[in-house]
């Protein structure tokens, strides 16, 4: 459709060009053809709102611990999904977690050609539901696995020293406007 529009614009411009050369004085209308196209909208992550409670992305961006995670979210182009009304529960690896990956892995994932691979890993950290820590404990108690946005399932365990998800311990929990962030120090790389 866009191509058709573009072709049409081009034809319109050329037609005008011809008219203007023979008639002599209507050239400024060339610019008018641009307005035919609706501008590309920015996604929901561009909404300016300093009144509502902060959403998951706003919280992550405000903390230095999540610099790498935020960079990965942006590289994978999933910012809009992370601010979506959700609800979402995000297991958020700190910077150090990415350092634990085999050398070169992160750099490799951040390459444009690996965008979808990176996105797949990131959404493996997101459960499309509302899981405060009290609910995670119940999940463990009732033996229910967490369904992740990657399509994979993660095991929840309620151990003596804390709650574990996918084998890694939850260090801290933060309520965000569109769900919960649970801080972890390992990247949950999904099995292929």
């Amino acid at each position, binding site marked *: 459709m*866009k191509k058709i529009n*573009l072709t049409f*614009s*081009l034809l319109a*411009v*050329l037609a*005008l*060009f011809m008219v*203007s*050369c023979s008639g002599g*004085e*209507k*050239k*400024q*209308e*060339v*610019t*008018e*053809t*641009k*307005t035919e*196209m*609706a*501008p*590309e*909208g*920015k996604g929901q992550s561009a*909404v300016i*709102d300093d*009144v*509502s*409670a902060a*959403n998951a992305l706003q919280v992550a961006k405000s903390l230095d611990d999540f610099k790498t995670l935020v960079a990965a979210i942006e590289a994978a182009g999933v910012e809009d999904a992370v601010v*979506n*009304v*959700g*609800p979402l529960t995000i297991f958020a690896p700190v910077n150090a977690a990415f350092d634990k990956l085999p050398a070169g892995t992160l750099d490799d994932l951040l390459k444009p050609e690996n965008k979808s691979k990176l996105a797949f890993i990131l959404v493996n950290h997101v459960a*499309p*539901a*509302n899981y405060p820590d*009290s*609910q995670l*404990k*119940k999940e463990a108690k009732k033996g229910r696995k967490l369904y992740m946005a990657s399509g994979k399932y993660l095991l929840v365990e309620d151990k003596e020293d804390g709650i574990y998800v996918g084998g890694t311990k939850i260090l801290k929990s933060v309520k965000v*406007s*569109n*769900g919960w962030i649970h801080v972890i120090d390992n990247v949950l790389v999904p099995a292929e």
Partner: protein
Amino acid sequence: MKTIFKSLLAIMVLSMVLGSCGKGDSKKNGALSGNAAERVYVAPGEYDEFYAFVSGGFSGQLSVYGLPSGRLFKVIPVFSVDAEKAYGFNEETKPMLNTSHGFIPWGDSHHPDISQTGGVLDGRWVFINENNTPRIAKIDLTTFETTEILEIPNSAGNHSSSFVTENTEYVVAGTRFSIPFPQRDMPIKEFKGNFKGALTFIKVDPKDGTMDIKFQLMMPGFDYDLSHPGRGDSHGWFFFTTYNTEEANSLLEVNASQNDKDFIAAVNWKKIEEYVNNGGGTKMPAKYAHNVYSDEVHSATSTMRDEVLIVNPSEVPGAIYFMPTPKSPHGCDVDPSGEYIVGNGKLSADLTVHSFSKLIKAIEEKKFDGDAYGIPILQFEATLAGVVKSPGLGPLHTEFDGKGNAYTTFFISSEVVKWKLGTWEVLDRKSTYYSPGHLMIPGGNSGKPFGKYALVMNKITKDRYLPTGPEVTQSAQLFDITGEKMVLLSDFPTIGEPHYAAGIPASLIMSKSKKIYKLEENKHPFATKSQSTAKVIRKGNEVHIYMTMIRSHFAPDNIEGVQVGDKVFFHITNLEQDYDVPHGFAMIGAQTSELLIMPGQTETSIWEPKQVGVWPFYCTDFCSALHQEMQGYIRVSPKGSNVPISFTLDGDALDAE
């Protein structure tokens, strides 16, 4: 990427054009300005330049449109119940529709007017009148909700309302129908001399906008049609058109058109205010409701008032005068300078314009032509500024562009006519489709109009849209008035009757629009501020459910122990603190509307189960990805059953860890 490509292409083509023709200079021309589609097009994601608050007329509501696009943003329930928003259905808003006649589910909204400071729109509130059961409402422009409704006693057909003075000192409400004062059982044919027309001056608290009747001026029994405040030099005066000065009580279409001239009443309200402040006037018994909605308790209260201060014109000599105006004048419009008062005689061939400075001079020189019930009638010529000769048929209303021009609608000849103040010459005329009533220029009733667009609101539609059976939507037509000639840009449908409208630049109010209600500021007596404190309590046959909602569940969502014959109160709090995330609530078989609860708000719905069984409820607003999962069950047992009250979420008590 594509955009860059397009731009490059455009530049290439452009340079080809320029290069080949060799003359690069260009200027704007008529072909561009003639592009109506472009001038009303607001690209996706872009904002309109103006808000238009368009009355819903017999819908009783107030709609919010964007201009120039004509896009509908919201319908604010004011005088009629609105099942979509639970207005008049939930326990919190039912008191808003209380009157001295009891709960009234419908109203007829007419003239919105935006609050002003120093004669300029300040964008704090919109006031609007209800015709049928006389009331004035106030809409808060941070929440875009109706926050106050004041009933007007001794009034009927509250039509010459609700216009504000230049510092919103007063909102004024004049009666269309005169009625016995005080109301009593009497023969209708004894109308003349016995019926009265109340002009009500409502004081507005400058801080929070609270309305309170300061005084009612008990005028002769004419019909008071429309009104406008003075401004600038005429600030302190208010002008009201009258018709039926014949005081007919039947077949008014004939009997109220006998007099060659009716009047515009000029009322010096500052003088009467001074009289009242010094103890003047008489307190009389009255019964009228004052309903106030609070954002703190998210609830309205209705208080019945029992007294009103009455002032008779004879008590304040020199405060009220009649200016004769031909043939049943309807619109009564004051220009931005405050000097000209335009009377649009519905049946007159000409427009009559009075001069405020001449009015003052005529009063000083006592240029009177008798009196009506003791109120001096000024000589017609003495106050006359000029006449717009034969501008059209059936003039109704006039607005101003702030550049010395006036725009008047003509119902019968179905057109809007632009004319010049001072010279009274007609400059342009454009047909409208069909039969316009009011027109609106943003800031039109103020010292500073924003003269870019005129919105003309038509009464008759006929063939203008795809037909929809006998009833067709009434239309609003947008004109560009920046040029010498008016240009019709678009034509869009409205709700009910777009009786009148008020417009304001979006930049003056959009940043103040509220996003959420803070949960910690919620003082609703039945608020539940955390899931763990949700509960169900039985009190006799009343069951009170303190419930919370957050993406994507209710807490509790399984409730047992309710019985047939119980009265179940759902007190539901939306725990969200995120912009544009309301939740809804609907209970099967509830004889009421849904609830639509904003973030941080609490609302209450009543359900009286009549059948044994297990009955579901659910969220009605597509709130989240798991909206379809947002549901619950209530077990209803027979009356007298021994099933105890219990409530759970995920099989556990709510305060369980």
